[in-house]
């Protein structure tokens, strides 16, 4: 083999090597472009958040933060921000709890039981994400007003739960599937009821994954702006509040508010990224 390779003239191998290096260069460029696409706005957001209001308004830009917390201070003391922040947290926590309480049992059933239409059900769960929310917004708003759920944290949390549910079902499905059923069966033969087996054996093993999926539901609610804007008036969440005041609020407020929204989401998703990748049952099985 090696002798045969050595006899190939150098000018014949060159085009292959060249096209390979072009491919590698293109790949690198695409990666760099994607990174820039995500990171440049985040960087600008960070720079402007950590600069004084004067520096944010001023020109020319240095591209480096002046490490001044004036903007953050201004944002935190701005009328209505505190309440909006609280609403966002409450909605996100309620969404997180509902999405797990409703989603995890569905994920367990998908993973442990065989039933007719299982794959169709999985597909359907996912397809709910393809349904455009704006189409639903008006009838939903009307219905919410009729049942007095409009402009409430719990009403908005219900909508956010429907958005987060497909993910919590599919992620928990994959997490449960990653635990061999023999662990539960062993628990049953050792004296456990189905519920005890779940609580004493399965739950401790899936808890990190469940927590990750809960955090993801939290993030979905935290970032959601459309339903929040349509369904709340007095009890705005932070996203809706920022959108509403976008026209007239000063620049430092927008930057600090934006950072406030992005930061928790970034941290959370970074913390649970491993579980997100396992959503299709690739990493965890």
């Amino acid at each position, binding site marked *: 083999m090696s002798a045969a390779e050595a006899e190939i003239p150098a000018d014949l191998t060159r085009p292959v090597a060249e096209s390979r290096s072009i491919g590698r260069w293109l790949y690198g460029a695409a990666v760099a472009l994607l990174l820039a696409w995500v990171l440049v706005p985040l960087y600008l957001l960070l720079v402007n958040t950590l600069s004084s209001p004067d520096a944010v308004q001023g020109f020319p830009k240095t591209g480096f933060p002046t490490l001044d917390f004036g903007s953050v201070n201004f944002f935190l003391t701005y009328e209505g921000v505190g309440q909006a922040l609280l609403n966002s947290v409450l909605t996100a926590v309620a969404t997180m709890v509902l999405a797990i309480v409703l989603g995890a049992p569905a994920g367990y059933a998908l993973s442990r039981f065989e039933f007719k239409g299982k794959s169709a059900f999985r597909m359907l769960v996912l397809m709910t994400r393809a349904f455009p929310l704006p189409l639903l917004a008006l009838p939903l708003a009307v219905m919410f007003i009729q049942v007095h759920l409009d402009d409430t944290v719990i009403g908005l949390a219900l909508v956010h739960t429907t958005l987060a549910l497909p993910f919590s079902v599919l992620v928990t499905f994959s997490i449960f599937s990653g635990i*061999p059923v023999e662990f539960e*069966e*062993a*628990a049953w*033969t*050792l*004296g*456990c*009821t189905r519920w005890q087996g779940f609580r004493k*054996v399965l739950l401790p093993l899936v808890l990190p994954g469940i927590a990750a999926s809960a955090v993801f539901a939290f993030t979905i609610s935290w970032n959601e702006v459309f339903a929040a804007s349509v369904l709340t008036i007095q009890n705005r969440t932070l996203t809706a509040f920022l959108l509403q005041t976008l026209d007239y609020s000063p620049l430092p407020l927008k930057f600090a508010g934006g950072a406030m929204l992005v930061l928790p989401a970034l941290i959370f998703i970074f913390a649970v990224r491993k579980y997100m990748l396992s959503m299709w049952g690739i990493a965890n099985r």
Partner: protein
Amino acid sequence: MAEIRIKSVGKRFGSFTALHSIDLDIADQSFVVLLGASGCGKTTLLRIIAGLETPSTGEVWIGDRRVDHLPPRERGIAMVFQNYAVFPHLTVFENIAFGLRMKKLPQADIDRRVKRTAELMHIEQLLKRYSGQLSGGQRQRVAVARALAMEPDVILMDEPLSNLDALLRLEMRAELKGVLAASRTTTVYVTHDQVEAMSLADRIAVMNAGRIEQAADPVEVYRNPATRFVGGFIGSPPMNFVPATRAGNGGWQAAGLTFAGPAAGDRLDLAVRPEDLTHAAEGFAATVRVIEPLGAHTLVTAEVEGRPFRAVIDSDHRVAPGDVLHLMPRADRIRWFDPETGKAA
């Protein structure tokens, strides 16, 4: 302590029938091995006894209780799984104590029983470790200790040695036999490994396609297979089969030789084990194809009338491919099978 009675148990998964009306009695304190190739239904039967599957038809009795409607925890069983299922979030101690805690035994009793079974399985130095810090063999020991600590009426084992390497498997096999005999617990053991089955069992139930072909003690299964399938499955290499036709004077004609045989029928298969053939002046004319020296013996793969035919002969005989050997079956070791039904004749 309990005997197990399985009465016409059947199991269907949709249109697939995994078990056809199985009847099996397992005596108190006996060691029964369910032996068969994968997909024969042996694990399904074990899981039905455990209560992890529900039979479609039939009854399961343990002791004097009918248990087929009971959940696993009420059956007085303990099970060892193929992948051991040692709980990764608990220490070895807590794994062994798990079932005892479920029974709400006093702490002193739990300590005593965990200590005793851990000593029995030689894992007392591992009690503080977690599953992730154990080797496969150690996990296996924990799984067995966890089952023994329950002091169950019946221990069920699903291919417990199949994930161990060959040497460890040999060691654990002997140890399991000793421990289980000492505990005098009724044991049902599933395996596809016939050597394991032979060495462990008081009784072997050979299964094929959802039926029990034969349930008897190991030597009986080996010497007197109830069906052609059993003869062709047990033994390494398995039995040789030679078609035979009715000759005059009540004898049978097979590959040019005449043998005494059953009175009834007019077409049978003569069966003989490779080690029951002697190199003689008169016998089946076998053309040698492959020779495999095994030390004490030589395994010869030959052809008799165009059919494969194996013989285990003394390694003193020098043979070469292409030679024609004359192999005579020992008269008392010849068995006969009906080619239509597969049953012994």
